[in-house]
């Protein structure tokens, strides 16, 4: 019973991955919109883009990790 609840919890935690996907899409989309308006400044901001994507993605990875912990470690 407890294991099944944990699996449900893991599924719920996986929703966080989708939320992180929204975040990453937001970062990349806004970068692209800005880059198309001012292409000359785009190249200097790729590092910032990747840092932003990394931060947004990290939270998705956290939820994935919670899902894994619920699946395998609880």
């Amino acid at each position: 019973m407890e294991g099944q609840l944990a699996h449900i919890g893991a599924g719920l935690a996986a929703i966080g991955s989708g939320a992180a996907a929204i975040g990453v899409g937001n970062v990349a989309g806004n970068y692209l919109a800005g880059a198309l308006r001012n292409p000359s400044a785009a190249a200097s901001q790729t590092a910032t883009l990747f840092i932003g994507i990394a931060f947004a993605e990290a939270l998705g990875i956290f939820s994935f990790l919670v899902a894994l912990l619920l699946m395998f470690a609880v």
Partner: protein
Amino acid sequence: MATETHEATSHAADAAASAPGMPQLDFSNWGNQIFWLMITLVAIYFVLSRIALPRIAAVLAERQGTITNDIAAAEGLKVKAAEAEEAYNKALADARAQAQAIVAEAKAEIQVELDAAIAKADAEIAAKAAESEKAIAEIRAGALVAVKEVASDTATEIVSTLGGKADVKAVGAAVDTRIKG
């Protein structure tokens, strides 16, 4: 978290033979991994900092130097080419000026000769003209005398034919006045 890890280790311990939960949370092998990771990192660090990075830095610096030198050499050659072009242009201008000088000199010489020839020819022509004039004057004088004689002869003849006695002096005077008029 603490309880989770506790459970994870206990699970990993009793599930080691079969499929374990998350191998990442099996803390019994962390020491092993960290040990080998340290050795790996130290090895990479020494290889990179002692051999690879100085070598690549040297290669890049050398390449930069070669490029700079080549560019400098190209600049030098460009300057030389410009100098050569300038020298060529100068030589061309000199040659042109010299040619013009020669032409002018030749022209002047020819002019002098021409002038001399013209003067000579003029003098000759003048001499010839004077001679001719003299000859014409003589001829004219001769002609005048002849005309006078012929006229007086003719007048005398006419007068004698008409039956008169021709006064030679009067005829001569009349002819003279006629000719002059």
